C-alpha cells in the first residue's frame, strides 16, 4: 500500500496521484468538520459515508485529522472512492499518522490532489486556500458535520455559499461545543438541515445492508443495561448506582456483554453496539 508507486501527474493547475477522470466529480460531496470529533460525529460520519458509498457518491475531504480523516477511513473501509485535497505538497504527508490511509485511498481508485509543488510544506495560510479546492471539486455541495464556533469548517461553508454551492449541515446536541457552528448554520438559514443521505441526493436510496448479527440470548439484567445506555452512554459506576447492584455484579455482566458483542467500551464509558 505504498503511495509512492503512484506517480505525481499534473492536470491543469492541480498536482495529483491516481487516475484523473472528470466523471469522478459528477457525483461528489465535500465533507468538512471539526478536528475534535466526538463519538457523535463518528457515528454521523459512519451513517452518511456508508450510504454515500452505496449510492456511488464520491467523498471529498481536506485530509486533516478529526472528521476529515474519519471520512477518508470510512470511505475506504466501505470500498468507496475518496478524493483527498492536501494543504501541502503530495510528497509531504500531513498529518503524518495518515500515511496508511493515503495508500488505501489510491488503491481504491481515489485521488489525492494539491495545488502546491510536490515538496511544499504545510502552512496555516494554505489551509483556507485548500478549502476552496475542496469546494470546487464537489458537485453536490458541502456537508458540515460537527463544527465549533468560529471554526475552519464554517469558513468553508461561507466560501461555498459565495461559490453558489449548496451547504448541508447535520444538527448536533445543542450543548455540544463542536456542534454550535452546525446548529448556527441551520438557524441562520445558511445551510439545509439534513438527517440522511436522501436529503442530499433526491433519488431513491439504496438501503444499507444490515450486517448479519449473531443473536445472543440476553438475560433481563443485560436487557436493562442495554436499554439504559441506549441514549446515554455511562461509566460502570453510574450503571451500578442506577441498577442498585454491586460493582462486582455489574462488571461481571458487562464483561460478558462485551464478549457477546452487546456493548463496547471507550474511555471508560459503555456504549450500545448498533
Amino acid at each position, binding site marked *: 500500500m505504498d503511495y509512492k508507486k503512484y506517480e505525481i501527474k499534473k492536470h491543469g493547475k492541480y498536482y495529483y496521484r491516481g487516475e484523473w477522470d472528470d466523471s469522478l466529480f459528477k457525483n461528489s460531496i465535500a465533507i468538512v468538520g471539526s*478536528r475534535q470529533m466526538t463519538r457523535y460525529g463518528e457515528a454521523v460520519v459512519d451513517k452518511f459515508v456508508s450510504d454515500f458509498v452505496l449510492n456511488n457518491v464520491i467523498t471529498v475531504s481536506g485530509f486533516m485529522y478529526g472528521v476529515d480523516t474519519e471520512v477518508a477511513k470510512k470511505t475506504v473501509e466501505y470500498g468507496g472512492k475518496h478524493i483527498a485535497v492536501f494543504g501541502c505538497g503530495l510528497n509531504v504527508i500531513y498529518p503524518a499518522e495518515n500515511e496508511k490511509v493515503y495508500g488505501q485511498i489510491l488503491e481504491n481508485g481515489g485521488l489525492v490532489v494539491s495545488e502546491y509543488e510536490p515538496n511544499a510544506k504545510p502552512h496555516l495560510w494554505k489551509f483556507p486556500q485548500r478549502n476552496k479546492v475542496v469546494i470546487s471539486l464537489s458537485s453536490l455541495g458541502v456537508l458540515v458535520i460537527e463544527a465549533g464556533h468560529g471554526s475552519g469548517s464554517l469558513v468553508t461553508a461561507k466560501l461555498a455559499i459565495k461559490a453558489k454551492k449548496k451547504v448541508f449541515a447535520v444538527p448536533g446536541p445543542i450543548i455540544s461545543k463542536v456542534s454550535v457552528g452546525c446548529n448556527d448554520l441551520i438557524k441562520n438559514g445558511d445551510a439545509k438541515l439534513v438527517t440522511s443521505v436522501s436529503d442530499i441526493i433526491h433519488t431513491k436510496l439504496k438501503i444499507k445492508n444490515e450486517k448479519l448479527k449473531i443473536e445472543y440470548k440476553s438475560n433481563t439484567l443485560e436487557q436493562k443495561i442495554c436499554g439504559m445506555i441506549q441514549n446515554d452512554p455511562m461509566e460502570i459506576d453510574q450503571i451500578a448506582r442506577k441498577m442498585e447492584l454491586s460493582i462486582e455484579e455489574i462488571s461481571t455482566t458487562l464483561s460478558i456483554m462485551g464478549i457477546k458483542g452487546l456493548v463496547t467500551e471507550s474511555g*471508560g*464509558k459503555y456504549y450500545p453496539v448498533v
Partner: protein
Amino acid sequence: MLSKILSASHFGLEPNLIEVEVNVFSKGFPGFNIIGLPNKSIEEAKERVKTAILNSDIEFPNQKIVVNLAPADIPKEGSLYDLPIAIGILASMGLVKLPIEKSFFYGELSLDGNLRHTKGVFLLGLAAKQKGIKSVFVPGESANEASVLSGIDVYPVKSLSELIAHLNGIKKIEKLKHTIHSSRYTDHEVVEFDFAEIIGQESAKRAMTIAAAGGHNIFLVGTPGAGKTMLARATAGILPPLNEEEALEVTKIYSVSGLIPAGEGLVRTRPFRTAHHTTSLIGLIGGGTNPHPGEISLAHNGVLFLDEFPEFSRGTLEALRQPLEDRKVSITRIAGSVNFPASFMLIAAANPCPCGYLGDLKRECKCTPRMVMNYQSRLSGPLMDRIDLHINVPSVDVNKLMNTKDSKNQKIQDSKQIREQVVKARNIQNKRFKGLPVYTNANMRNKHIKEFCNITKEANLLLKQAVNAYNLSARTYFRIIKVSQTIADLAESKIIEQNHVAEALQYRVRNE
C-alpha cells in the same frame, strides 16, 4: 602490641568479614594511620576515636598507631569501624581484655564516647549467624535490629566506658533477649486518606482492593482531580501486615539503607514508597559504585507509587520492565555484582493526554491526536503488559456527590473493613504458597498457576472466548487467571468460577 578485632561490612546485601588489626608501639615517630582502602568517612574516624577515648577519661597513647582493615583489597566506607578501632587501641594498650569467644564490634562513636545509631546492624547479625560468631557488640539504639535473629548474643552498648567496664568484668552489660516482637515500629502508621472519604469511584476502589489483596500492579488513568492520587495514597491503609519471612526481607533492605529509626527492630509495616518523576534511574533501580538499593527495592514486599507515570524518562520506565518480571534486580559494577530483591506492587497513575481532559464531558481537550499518541506511546506495550489491572478513574460530577439518595443505596466501606477482606485473602494465599518463595497471586509463575489455580470449565471457556474477541496475548491470558484467582480468594471460593473471570476481564489492557 598487636590486637585483632572482628567486624563485618556488606557489599549489597552480602556480608563481608573484616578484621581490624591495630598495632600500638613505642618505636617510630608518634602517629595514627589507617590503611586497607578506607574512604573519607573512615579517615575521619581517627579524630572521633581519639576524642572519644580522651572523653572517656583515658590517656590517648602518644605512640605510633597503625590500623589495618583486612582484607586490604576491598574498598571500605562508613562509620561502623569506629568502635572496633577504639577497642583495638585500648586492647593493644592492655586497657581492656578481649572476650575469649569470637565477637563482632560495630558502631559509630560520638565525640563524648557514646555510641550512635549505625545502619546495617541487622546485616551484622546475619553475618554473625552465618560465620558462627556468638556475640555482637552494637550501639544500644541499633541493638533491636539484631535481636530479632535467634542464636546470637546481642550486647547493646551505650558508651565506650560502659563497654570497657563490661570487658574487664567490672560491670556486665545485660544481653538482649531474642524476640521477634521487640519492635514498636508497627501500628502507629499515619495514612492520609480513608477509603470512606473518597466518594463515588466504586469500581476503582474495588480494583484497588483486588490489587492490594493479590499484590497486583495497577494502572490508573483519569482526568486531573478525579482522585487518582487520593486512591493510591489511601491504599496504604488497606495493605495487610507483613508475614514473618517478608518482614525479615524488608528489615534487611531497610537496615542497609539506614531507614530503620533508632531503637526500632523488625519492620512490620508494609512499605509504601512514592517516587517523583524526576527521580534518577539509579535512585529508582539502585546502583552506585558500592551499590545501594533503589526505590524499587525499598518497596520490596510493599507498594511503589509512581504518579504522572508517562512523565518519567523513557529509560527509567523501561528499566522497570526486568524487575517487574523477575521480582529482583541485579546491579553490576566494577566492584562486583549485587542482587537486590524488588518484589513490589506498582501503582502507576496517568492522565489520558497531555492537557488531561481527553474524554471529559465538561472540558474540551486541547490536544491534537498526534500529541495524544505521543503521550500514550511513552508507555511501551511490554511495560503495560506487565501491569495486571488497568482502570479508568472518571471525574465525578459534584452534584452526584451531594445526592444522598444515590449514595444511600450503596454502603460505603471504610479502609478498616476493606483491610479485613484483604487480610483474609492474603491469609488464603499464605497458606497456598507455604514454603515457596511466592507470597502473592501476582508473584505466581506459570507453573504455579498450573499447580494451584482451579478453574472451572465454563470459566475457561469464557476466557478462551475473550482471548479471541479481544486478541489477548499469552501473557495477558495468564495475568487474567492471576487476577481471577485473587477475586476468587476475596470471595473465599476454592475454585475460579465464570463470574470471577468475567470481573477480571474488566481490568485488562485496552488498546485503542
